[in-house]
């Protein structure tokens, strides 16, 4: 399509889209004024019935835990796809681990800062995972913060050393156990409360660490899965970028 034709097309379609947008936006409720019935119901039951003080986690890991199962397996399947696409194929070699490669010419300041961040990120990640039902956070948020700690280690040093600390079997086990554990917690509901993903543990006192029924367990399972998933994807990409080399003389 020539530039002229594209401009003509935009000249017709642009104002049309703008008109539809204006009409659509005029129908929206006023800013900050939307109190949907579903939200009011969740606000009503999350604390009184479930004893959770963070309603987002109550929604994700109890009231609509089945939806989270779907999201879990979307992540699981996409990680499988990434590892399948980025595997070492014929005509490629994974470089010898002994050939250490510095990631970037990282300065001393970057190294010190990222090394200092590692324990803080680990502590924050664990806190977010186990306090999901009490304060903002939960399995997903805590899981990615936990995955960020090894990534900081990579900025601080050499990529191969990171791989020694996060071997494939460990991160794959974390992802698999997390995904299977979440599914099995739902099955626990089926066994002990006769409904899949129905809470089967005592609710406890609101605000205490061991409260809100099985939400903390769900949060830990999701945290493991998310941490493993992100580390698998990052190392798959970085392996390809830093370690995998095309064998000389072989057509790509």
């Amino acid at each position, binding site marked *: 399509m020539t530039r002229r034709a594209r401009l003509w097309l935009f000249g017709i379609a642009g104002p049309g889209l703008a008109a539809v947008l204006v009409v659509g936006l005029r129908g929206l409720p006023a800013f900050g004024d939307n109190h949907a019935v579903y939200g009011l119901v969740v606000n009503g039951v999350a604390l009184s019935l479930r004893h959770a003080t963070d309603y987002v986690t109550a929604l994700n890991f109890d009231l609509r835990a089945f939806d989270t199962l779907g999201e879990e397996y979307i992540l699981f399947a996409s990680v499988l796809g990434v590892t399948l696409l980025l595997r070492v194929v014929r005509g490629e070699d994974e470089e010898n681990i002994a050939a250490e490669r510095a990631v970037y010419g990282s300065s001393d300041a970057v190294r010190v800062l990222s090394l200092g961040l590692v324990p803080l990120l680990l502590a924050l990640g664990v806190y*977010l995972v186990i306090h999901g039902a009490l304060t903002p956070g939960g399995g997903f948020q805590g899981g990615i*913060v936990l995955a960020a700690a090894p990534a900081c280690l990579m900025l601080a040093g050499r990529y191969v050393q990171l791989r020694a600390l996060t071997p494939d079997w460990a991160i794959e086990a974390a992802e698999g156990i997390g995904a299977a554990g979440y599914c099995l917690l739902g099955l626990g509901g089926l066994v002990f409360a006769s409904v899949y993903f129905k809470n089967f543990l005592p609710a406890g006192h609101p605000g205490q660490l061991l409260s809100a029924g099985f939400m903390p367990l769900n949060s830990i399972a999701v945290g493991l899965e998310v941490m493993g998933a992100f580390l698998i994807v990052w190392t798959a990409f970085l392996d390809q*970028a830093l370690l995998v080399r095309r064998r000389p003389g072989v057509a790509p």
Partner: protein
Amino acid sequence: MTVLQIVALVAVAVGGGAVALIRDPLRQTLALGIDGLALVVLFFAFQAPDVALSEIVVGTLGLPLIVLAALRKIGEQDRHRRTDQEQK
């Protein structure tokens, strides 16, 4: 709407526009990370701290790391192709 909410909305809009307009992929990735940080403030200002917590890592580390690794791989393949053509 509070001042913080308006500032965050403008920052995200400007950042998003910058990501689309920058031509160099490396600078684009950096702008993407900064726009992710603006999004964190936006989510926080609109009372969604759960989403903000996820966005901190996904926007500033998760996505840029993957893009940077892919860029490096593509650049390397281009170099290989060029040396192959020179040898022929």
